[in-house]
């Protein structure tokens, strides 16, 4: 098969003549979102450095140009193949002595020209403006074209199985949003409703569907290229299979009607479930059935669209089938007929268990050198348990949580568990529990108090190569650096206190009065995974450790140094705003009078040591605004301790 038999110049010229305005509009749109911001940056920052320009360019391409590419790449093929959707034009085109593959590839070439030329043109303009970024501009153009290729070929393939141009634009647009929609729904269902379900891999998966400049560089471009080629081949095949008499239909292939109909039904069901599910928040099993009537509406609407009539026909059978599918879904999830929810693996079949938790210090590693560096293995997140006794504790919790089921609440403790089993399979579960069920909660605490888990929550208790550089004590409105000798003492005390602490001592940040800010750095690995000797190129982090009342060693040391529970003086304060939330009643007041401020400070000092009950939702929050006007600090105490403050 020669190139001449695959592409016809006359067809391409005709396409260019008829649809030149698409390319021009695309070029202008790209100009507005890429060239103009770059020009503006250069105008107002003539001394702009290469790095700044790079970051501006990066942001610009990341957020806008990819978004601009999508609609044009959907519309262009839809227009080029719109002749398939009209009786006269389809006959005129297909009576010509051109094979379908020739028509298909000729129009694809036209689409490629209409999309690629504007990108190249804008890249050329940018070249003339900024001489320092040739590689980035080239990369931008190349990545944009690769992504455009994926979307264009997808839209072209979609045009092959729709019967009108509006559907040709709508279908790829809807399909583009479906992964986002389903992922969102799965996250909500998994987190809020489906007990034990984990959808932790979905956000990462989305990176491969909706690319960014960064993900394209990471490898998505190969995925885009591969998908583009697959869509081109699929489109060619669909065109060969297409019956031309099916113009004006919504779907050109009868076999796709059920896919469209049930797809719409499930989407409508999910939307209904999400929209009205909150009304039946207390009963997961009832809210699952909300999907049924919405799904039936979806079927009726789908039949209306397929038959292009407000009088839907042939709906009884699909409604019965959809209802049956919902029953199966209910039996699977709601009634757990397969035992999915209740399954707890036998300890002899487990290789390791990975548990994640959210109740420790927040880790945020930074790489000061800006080079590509990697964290050493012992600094990675998520503890993996291999010890049999530790695994038994996780299993005990898992079994109790699965037996007792989830309890709906505004606040809960969660524990995602990932088992690696001896047969090589991976079993994931996630449980949200409250402290209402003492048995389950105690088992949850037992897991959280495992040394390995504690090390993950509070890295200071782990054995690592971390080098501590600075420690400061944070009190209300004041921060005090410690000298090296005190640093060493407080870190030793902190380590001991954390090891001794129970989970219930530490899960509530509101019960902490003073905190320690600990700066450290740890060895990093270069791109060949070799340890880096130069410490200025190590990873650094700043972790904030709350000092809880149960941390007796720390409290004793800080008290001795006069750094525990230090309060600002009333002279330093311009005003205090008090917010009070009790039994869902909300009030607030401003305290500006010095006597009131002193009274409030005394009230805070006396009462904040008492843990507020984070589960009942009642609290008082004090927002302290300082004279300097540089900022404010706040603290929250239990609403039960409100005596002493006059509320107006």
């Amino acid at each position, binding site marked *: 098969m020669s190139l001449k038999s695959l592409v*016809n110049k*006359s067809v391409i010229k005709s396409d260019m003549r008829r649809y030149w305005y698409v390319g021009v509009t695309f070029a202008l749109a790209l100009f507005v979102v890429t060239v103009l911001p770059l020009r503006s940056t250069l105008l107002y920052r003539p001394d702009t450095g290469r790095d700044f320009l790079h970051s501006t360019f990066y942001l610009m391409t990341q957020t806008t140009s990819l978004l601009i590419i999508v609609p044009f790449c959907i519309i262009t093929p839809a227009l080029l193949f719109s002749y398939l959707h009209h009786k006269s034009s389809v006959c005129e085109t*297909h009576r*010509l*002595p*051109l*094979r*379908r593959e020739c028509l298909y590839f000729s129009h694809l070439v036209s689409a490629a020209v209409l999309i690629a030329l504007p990108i190249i043109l804008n890249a050329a303009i940018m070249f003339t403006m900024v001489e320092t970024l040739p590689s980035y501009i080239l990369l931008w153009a190349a990545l944009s074209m690769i992504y455009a290729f994926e979307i264009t070929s997808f839209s072209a393939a979609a045009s092959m199985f729709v019967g009108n141009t509006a559907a040709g634009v709508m279908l790829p647009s809807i399909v583009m949003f479906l992964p986002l929609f389903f992922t969102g729904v799965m996250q909500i269902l998994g987190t809020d409703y489906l007990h034990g379900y984990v959808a932790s891999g979905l956000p990462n998966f989305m990176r491969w569907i909706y690319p960014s400049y960064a993900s394209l560089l990471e490898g998505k471009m190969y995925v885009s290229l591969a998908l583009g080629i697959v869509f081109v081949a699929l489109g060619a095949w669909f065109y060969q299979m297409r*019956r031309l008499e099916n113009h004006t239909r919504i779907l050109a292939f*009868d076999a796709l009607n059920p896919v469209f109909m049930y797809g719409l039904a499930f989407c409508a069901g999910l939307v209904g479930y999400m929209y009205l599910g909150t009304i039946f928040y207390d009963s997961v099993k009832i809210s699952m059935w909300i999907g049924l009537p919405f799904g039936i509406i979806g079927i009726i609407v789908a039949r209306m669209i397929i038959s292009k009539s407000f009088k839907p026909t042939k709906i009884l059978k699909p409604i019965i089938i959809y209802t049956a599918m919902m029953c199966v879904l209910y039996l699977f999830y709601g009634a757990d007929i397969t035992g999915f929810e209740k399954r707890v693996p036998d300890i002899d079949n487990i290789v390791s268990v990975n548990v994640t938790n959210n109740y420790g210090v927040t880790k945020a590693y930074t790489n000061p050198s800006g080079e590509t560096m990697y964290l050493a293995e012992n600094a990675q997140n998520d503890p993996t348990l291999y010890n049999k006794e530790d695994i038994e504790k996780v299993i005990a919790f898992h079994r109790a949580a699965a037996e007792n089921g989830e309890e709906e609440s505004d606040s809960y403790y969660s524990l995602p568990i990932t088992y690696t089993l001896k047969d090589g399979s991976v079993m994931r579960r996630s449980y949200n529990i409250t402290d209402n069920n003492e048995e389950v909660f105690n088992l949850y605490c037992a897991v959280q108090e495992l040394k390995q888990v504690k090390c993950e929550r509070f890295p200071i208790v782990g054995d690592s190569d971390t080098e501590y550089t600075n420690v400061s004590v944070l009190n209300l409105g004041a921060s005090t650096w410690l000298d090296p000798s005190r640093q060493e003492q407080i870190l030793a005390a902190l380590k001991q206190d954390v090891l001794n602490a129970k989970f219930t001592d530490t899960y509530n940040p509101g019960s902490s009065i003073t905190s320690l800010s600990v700066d450290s750095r740890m060895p990093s690995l270069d791109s060949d995974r070799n340890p880096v000797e130069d410490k200025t190129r190590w990873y650094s982090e700043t972790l904030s450790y709350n000092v809880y009342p149960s941390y007796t060693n720390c409290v004793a040391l800080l008290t001795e140094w006069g750094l525990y529970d230090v309060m600002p003086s009333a002279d330093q304060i311009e005003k205090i705003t008090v917010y009070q939330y009790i039994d869902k009643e909300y009030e607030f007041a401003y305290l500006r009078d010095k006597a009131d401020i002193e009274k409030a400070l005394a009230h805070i000092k006396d009462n904040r040591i008492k843990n507020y009950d984070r589960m009942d939702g009642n609290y008082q929050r004090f927002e302290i605004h300082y004279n300097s006007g540089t900022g404010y600090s706040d603290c929250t105490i239990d609403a039960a301790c409100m005596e002493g403050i006059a509320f107006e």
Partner: protein
Amino acid sequence: MIEVKNVIKRFGDFFALNGVNINVEKGSVYGLVGPNGAGKTTVIKCMAGIYRQDGGSVLIDGKPVYENAEIKSRVAYVSDDLYFFPGYSIKDSAAYYRGIYPNWSEERFEEIADVFKIDEKRAARRLSKGMQKQAAFWLGLSTQPDVMILDEPMDGLDPVMRRNVWNIMLAEVANRGMTVLVSSHNLRELEDVCDHVGIMNKGRIAIEKGLDEVKGNIHKVQTAFRDGLPDELRTSLDVLKHEKAGSVDMLIIRGDSGEITDKIRKYSPLLLDVVPLTLEEVFIYELGGMGYELEIIGQ
């Protein structure tokens, strides 16, 4: 030249073509007639390579038409429902076809321009229906086709232009041996140009013969007998229609005219007159014989 063998085409559950057989010889003008919904346009679209048949085969010069660029480059199709690109003039369309049809002849295009006298720079979509038809013929003939397939081709053309178009096409038939297949409801016109006729009904070809043969096999007979039409005679003839006006019987009879007159003469008619039928009458009475509703409102 054109062979349509047992072609089946379904639209959902409906069989638009249900085993159609058509043979069109090279250099002939074939008229395809039939009632509305008989499947004429569908079979024409199969012949033009637009529709893919569900069964059977459509061949031109022994080769399948569907997805055969070489064969389709020798076929010109003028449809009832014309399409021109928005903003395209005839000149633009000619430039478009020039890059697609290998046999496109600029010389022929210029020659025919004198016949149609349409401003080739005017947007084709802005032309009247008749002028668009002329443009379609103009462009189609410029591709120098071996086969011309026409679906209601003269619809919208004035009588002079009809004659001009047919003259050009018949000249092509005579000079180059071009084959023409034409579907039309204007049977009077077909009668003048066709040498073969195929009558379609309910997705099948009911009759396919030379025009003379079709017309020679069905006759209008006016006769009168002293004691009325004898029953024996009535039953011995293949009577498609019988009407009585006073003592005169008007009969539409299928069969050889000599045999028919011989049979009637045996009963000593007072009057016997055999009148040739027009193609339109043949069409009406043949279809009537196939159960097609012949009652014409107002008659």
